[in-house]
């Protein structure tokens, strides 16, 4: 009971060794809960010869049934009825189909200390009223994507005065309005309050390039920040060197590199990963990360590239204790970073099978989750 809350309410958000025991206990409880409440998960776990009592130390976490994001996209799995959930969130579905993940109230309650502790640690919390430009989706009752929720959530680290959005919901679809965001930034630069730009890195890049073309150069108020979430998505081909993005942000908006904050997370693993001042994603206590061999799925040591496997006992509405992403990456020991954090850090290299898959085999488009109209 409450093993999850004991983990999430722990004091130091990066003390992994100090929370190993709590993490393993909470994960065992989480798996036992899902095996009891979700028959589909129980079948998977039993088929993989897993039982929660096998989890004694962090080394045993490798045994937790690993569910690929691909599986969540093909099957909605829930361990409680809809009425008991706080919300249901979906992945962005860049490649066609999307995952549906339920969030229970206990999960929301556990997220609060996580977000506050990490927000405090990474200096995101500011009491000054702030203008927001969100280079992402304007929340709408028809939009259940995790990234929309995350970006909206990021606008509460400093009290919002107003928010301008790059993507507006009109007649059943989102329409982009980058020029509107540029105009908003020009207005906010004259306001006495700081501004925060929250958004996809690709949108920031396109926006800054657009402003450069228009000859716009602003100096946002001191204390202004750029908060980047959601990854590059379908714009991976344009992924630019981070240093180019930072120098353009400095040139166009007057925001220093130290005030550009990056986040990482996934709807199936909604843990608040923050980049350190050296732009590394150190693993916080709420998560453990394994890197798996691309051929055998066996765990790999530090420094070797493989599939990123994310573990957390956060969610009880959907079994997500061990999620196999389709990202490639590697882990390094925290000491190698030099920022002062000892927790290992994760580097994401990109998504597997990035090339647009095309098929003429009967039924394959559906299986690939691409859907297919005309």
């Amino acid at each position, binding site marked *: 009971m409450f093993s999850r809350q004991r983990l999430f309410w722990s004091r130091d958000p990066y003390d992994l060794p100090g929370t190993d025991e709590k993490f393993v206990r909470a994960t065992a409880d989480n798996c036992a809960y899902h095996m009891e409440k979700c028959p589909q998960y129980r079948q998977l776990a039993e088929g993989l010869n897993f039982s929660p009592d096998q989890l004694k130390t962090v080394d045993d976490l490798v045994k937790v049934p690993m569910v690929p994001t691909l599986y969540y996209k*093909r099957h909605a799995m829930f361990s409680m009825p809809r009425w008991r959930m706080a919300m249901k969130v979906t992945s962005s579905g860049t490649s066609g189909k999307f995952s549906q993940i339920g969030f229970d109230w206990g999960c929301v309650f556990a997220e609060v200390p996580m977000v506050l502790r990490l927000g405090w640690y990474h200096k995101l919390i500011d009491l000054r009223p702030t203008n927001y430009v969100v280079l992402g989706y304007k929340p709408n009752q028809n939009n259940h994507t995790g990234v929309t929720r995350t970006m909206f959530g990021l606008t509460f680290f400093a009290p919002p005065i107003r928010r301008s959005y790059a993507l507006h919901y009109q007649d059943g679809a989102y329409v982009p309005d980058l020029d509107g965001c540029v105009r908003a930034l020009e207005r906010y630069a004259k306001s006495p309050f700081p501004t925060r730009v929250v958004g996809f890195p690709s949108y920031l890049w396109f926006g800054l390039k657009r402003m450069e073309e228009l000859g716009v150069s602003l100096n946002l108020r001191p204390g202004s920040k750029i908060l980047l979430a959601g990854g590059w998505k379908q714009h991976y081909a344009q992924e630019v060197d981070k240093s180019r993005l930072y120098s353009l942000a400095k040139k166009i908006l007057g925001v220093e590199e130290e005030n550009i904050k990056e986040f990482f997370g996934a709807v199936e693993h909604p843990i608040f990963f923050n980049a350190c001042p050296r732009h590394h994603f150190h693993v916080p206590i709420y998560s453990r990360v394994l890197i798996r061999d691309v051929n055998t799925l066996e765990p790999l040591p530090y420094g070797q*590239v493989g599939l990123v496997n994310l573990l957390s006992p956060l969610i009880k509405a959907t079994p997500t204790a061990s999620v196999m992403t389709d990202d*490639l990456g590697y882990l390094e020991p925290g000491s190698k970073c030099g920022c002062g954090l000892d927790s290992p850090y994760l580097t994401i290299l990109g998504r597997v099978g990035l090339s647009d898959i095309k098929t*003429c085999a*009967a039924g394959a488009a559906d299986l690939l989750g691409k859907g297919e109209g005309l």
Partner: protein
Amino acid sequence: MIFAHGTLLPDSELSEVLKNLPGELDDLRQQESLDPELAISALDSLGGRLDRGELDALIAQFAPPGALEALAQVRPMLTQENLEARLDLELGPDFRSPQPRPFGHSISLPLGTLFHVAAGNVDGLPVFSAVEGLLTGNVNLLKLPREDKGLSFAVLQALTDQEPKLASWLYAFDTPSSDHATLKALADLADGLVVWGGDEAVAACRALAPPGCKLMEWGHRLSFAYLSRWVGLDADLAALADHIVETGGLLCSSCQVIFLDAEDRAEGENFCRTFLPVLEEAAARRYRTPGQAAQATLYGYEHYLEGLTHPDRGSDIVFRGRACSLTLSNDQELTLSPLHGNVLVKRLPHKDLLPALRRQKGRLQTAGLVCPAEERVELTNLLARAGVNRITRPGHMSSTFPGEAHDGEYPLRRYRRTVDIEK
């Protein structure tokens, strides 16, 4: 964007282009029909530019990695000689001249206007379809797929730059599928609608085509390998493994299921144990990046998990290899594989072959046949009678052969009509 009159126009011109299109098409019809030689010579010249590397930059800009390799496969089909041979084969050597008939004579003419809808499954497909339309003298209206990042526009531009007279015969629109009004307007102008795609795309086009508009459907297909014996046929197994990994199960001609002419489940297990290392070797050779191997492993693992929860798959045996897998199932159905180097193995004694394949009639395409030489003729005939349209060596399932039919027929014949004229 819109491609019309040999130039690219912005979407804002769409209503103007659509307004003028009926008149322009009627004007063209009143003239002599397009001489296929014009298209052949432009394609031949374009092929020459391709060989000299003059189009490499264009391909690098618009086409995905591996496009050059794919182009090299179809390149021989673009020579003047092969294009003319194709016209002769499909339309008959005398299609250009009137043919005497007891009542007078008959002439072969283009259908008129073809509306091509290519659902984006193979790069360059819209252009390929338009070229078939040009070879048969038709005006071609293309609806480009969402995935087309400019390749079709660039190739059409290169083609009309090469032969400006072709410009009046080619229109392309990257109109989204949701713009039903524009698609309907284009379909209303067409004498024939050519659709390439899956069931959903074909169904949508059936709804779009007005009565009287001829529908030409190039739907998705399933292919398989049939092995009556494999001991000692190592080269065939290696070629099959290479094909499976190379195409990833994504093509109509990709092997989805390896059918074994065997009754005994133990024989199936023996085959899997023999074939798995061969498949692993092909995967190790073909996958050049960790991402490719990871994708294969993920799809294989996901399929394995699906098996754990699927009520009908309890008896499956999964042989997991390095970045590949074989799943031995008890049923005899031709179904889609888990893709990406993960393939299904099923026992299908040849006495059961025909009824099993008939359950997928209309979807059958290629069979890669592995058997002793003395059985080849009999098994080939059986497969053909079951409805298979291509029977090849295992390593050639996705190879292109000049002069081959397409899904059992010669497409160019469908894009022409015969006019009978009484004396």
